[in-house]
């Protein structure tokens, strides 16, 4: 029998199998941010093992609360900064150059097909968009990754999701993944990789594929994986042009990681998404999903566009296309956080920032901020936010607050009217 993408990556990275069913993998990228790394650093120091396995394979960024909002977050940033300097980790992104981890690391070309990556952040599954195996881990896994360059996994089974048909105008990757999570449930993919196939994925950009893979964890998935193709090659070309004689050669190499046609799957799900409408969550779990039309009229106090799910340039273009020439409702606070400085600059050059500001949005620096209720847009008790983020847990964006997840397009339309609105009604 053939192999899935994850099985191929596991086979190529296998360092040890201490017990049947447990695979210890060599890790190509150990990614770090200032919330989950400092305790690992402190523990390594305490153990007298303040070392790193490879200063090039480790990348670090300050992104969750930046610039620091108080003494505690300043200390977290300082611990990460001092550690990166001490170990000569060159790819460390500090204030002014920093962005949301799952946007900035792919943007720098750090993730390639066939790679293994771990990070102390559950949305690390985003990087599977490149045909990589990327998993969110806790601080102890991160600590061992930093010290030894390995991580242990139960070899995951794979759920194959075939996305057939063609998306209607105004329907995006975010709507697709919300729909898929609604179908799978919040633990429908636990200990599973979700492999995305089909014409809908094939025509998606890397930005859209990252949105798709980003929320695999919301169905419990270890990683979301897209098949590497020419779209992947084109995205990575500026970083790999010296490694390959041609794009065709790069493609041939990348395709080694494509799942075999006779691979064995835990489950195969076929969805024709041609009739899919913009999706919005209700309640406090990401699998509580309805159409934007069904949710229409729900009042919101804040609209937040950004995050590792939907803070990339295409997302800002989608939102700006709806906002152009319109203004945010008086009852709404609009906040947009371009996910990286590069995206911010592109948005400036394209006039998108002007559109957001003319509409009455507050444009913040790149940060995770409000998504997890740490800074830059925390909700008060009883408030409601329409957000392009990935979690609608009770109190996620601030105690007593509620979040409705949706696409940038739906969020923009909602900002204009002050109530959940299908952007296609404009």
């Amino acid at each position, binding site marked *: 029998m053939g192999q899935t993408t994850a099985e191929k990556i596991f086979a190529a990275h296998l360092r*040890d199998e201490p017990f049947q069913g447990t695979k210890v993998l060599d890790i190509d990228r150990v990614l770090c941010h200032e*919330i989950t790394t400092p305790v690992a650093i402190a523990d390594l120091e305490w153990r007298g093992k303040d070392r790193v396995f490879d200063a090039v394979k480790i990348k670090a960024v300050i992104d969750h609360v930046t610039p620091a909002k108080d003494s505690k977050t300043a200390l977290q940033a300082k611990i990460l900064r001092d550690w990166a300097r001490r170990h000569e980790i060159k790819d460390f992104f500090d204030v002014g150059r920093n962005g949301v981890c799952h946007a900035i690391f792919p943007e720098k070309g750090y993730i390639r097909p066939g790679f293994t990556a771990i990070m102390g952040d559950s949305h*690390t599954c985003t990087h599977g968009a490149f045909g990589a195996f990327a998993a969110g*881990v*806790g*601080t102890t896994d991160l600590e061992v990754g930093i*010290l030894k360059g390995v991580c242990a996994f139960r070899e995951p089974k794979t759920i194959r999701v075939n996305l057939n048909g063609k998306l209607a105008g105004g329907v995006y990757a975010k709507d697709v993944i919300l729909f898929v999570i609604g179908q799978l449930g919040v*633990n429908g993919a636990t200990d599973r990789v979700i492999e995305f196939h089909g014409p809908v994925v094939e025509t998606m950009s890397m930005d859209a594929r990252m949105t798709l893979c980003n929320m695999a964890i919301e169905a419990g998935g270890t990683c979301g994986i897209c098949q590497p193709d020419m779209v992947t090659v084109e995205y990575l070309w500026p970083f790999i042009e010296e490694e390959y004689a041609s794009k065709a050669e790069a493609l041939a190499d990348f395709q080694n990681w494509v799942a075999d046609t006779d691979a064995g799957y835990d489950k195969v799900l076929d969805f024709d998404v041609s009739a899919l409408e913009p999706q919005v969550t209700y309640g406090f779990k990401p699998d509580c999903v309805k159409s934007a039309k069904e949710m229409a009229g729900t009042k919101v106090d804040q609209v937040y566009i950004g995050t590792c799910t939907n803070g990339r340039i295409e997302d800002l273009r989608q939102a700006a296309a709806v906002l152009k020439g319109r203004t945010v409702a008086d009852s709404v606070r609009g906040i947009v956080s371009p996910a990286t400085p590069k995206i911010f600059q592109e948005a400036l050059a394209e006039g998108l920032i002007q559109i957001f500001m003319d509409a009455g949005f507050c444009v913040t620096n790149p940060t995770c901020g409000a998504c997890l209720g740490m800074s830059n847009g925390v909700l008060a008790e009883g408030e409601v936010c329409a957000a392009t983020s990935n979690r609608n*847990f*009770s109190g996620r964006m601030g105690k007593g607050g509620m979040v409705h997840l949706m696409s940038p397009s739906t969020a923009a339309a909602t900002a204009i009217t002050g109530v959940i609105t299908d952007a296609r009604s404009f």
Partner: protein
Amino acid sequence: MKKTFGGPSIFLDRGDINTDEIIPAKYLTEVTKEALKPFCLVDLSLDGFDPKGEKLANARVIVTRENFGCGSSREHAPWVFEVNEIHTVIAESYARIFRQNMFNCGMLAIELPKEQIDKLFALEQGSGDVDIAINLAEQKIVARGNSSEVCCSFEISQFDKALVEAGGWVEYADARY
């Protein structure tokens, strides 16, 4: 260092309890595990549950339903249990990262079939206070209420058991890789 397991229990009768409920993100600005101690399950809203109550303060074991620890990868969730001397969670199922984090810290995330979890909840309904003894070597638990008890065995992978025996993944990996 290998931890001790078992003792008075607290029952959380809901599925999908997420790590934001176990330890809200606003406390993730702490850089020591000890600083998390007062904030265990502080934002969990569940009928009859009091995060400042004696029941939680005395608990050494949590018994709960499916998909426990879903959401964020924050190891602050197992840590807030660890610093409150709760070294064991017994649930119907877990989110992968939380489960791994527990074993990586040398703690136990025991998985039991729904029928067994139901029996434990029934015992708690009848007794109020349930003390749970855990025998890791024999993979058995004995839950004692006021007048009755529930005994059952549990599965644990060899790797997870080795992590618990070693005191955690750092100790295990450091000795081996």
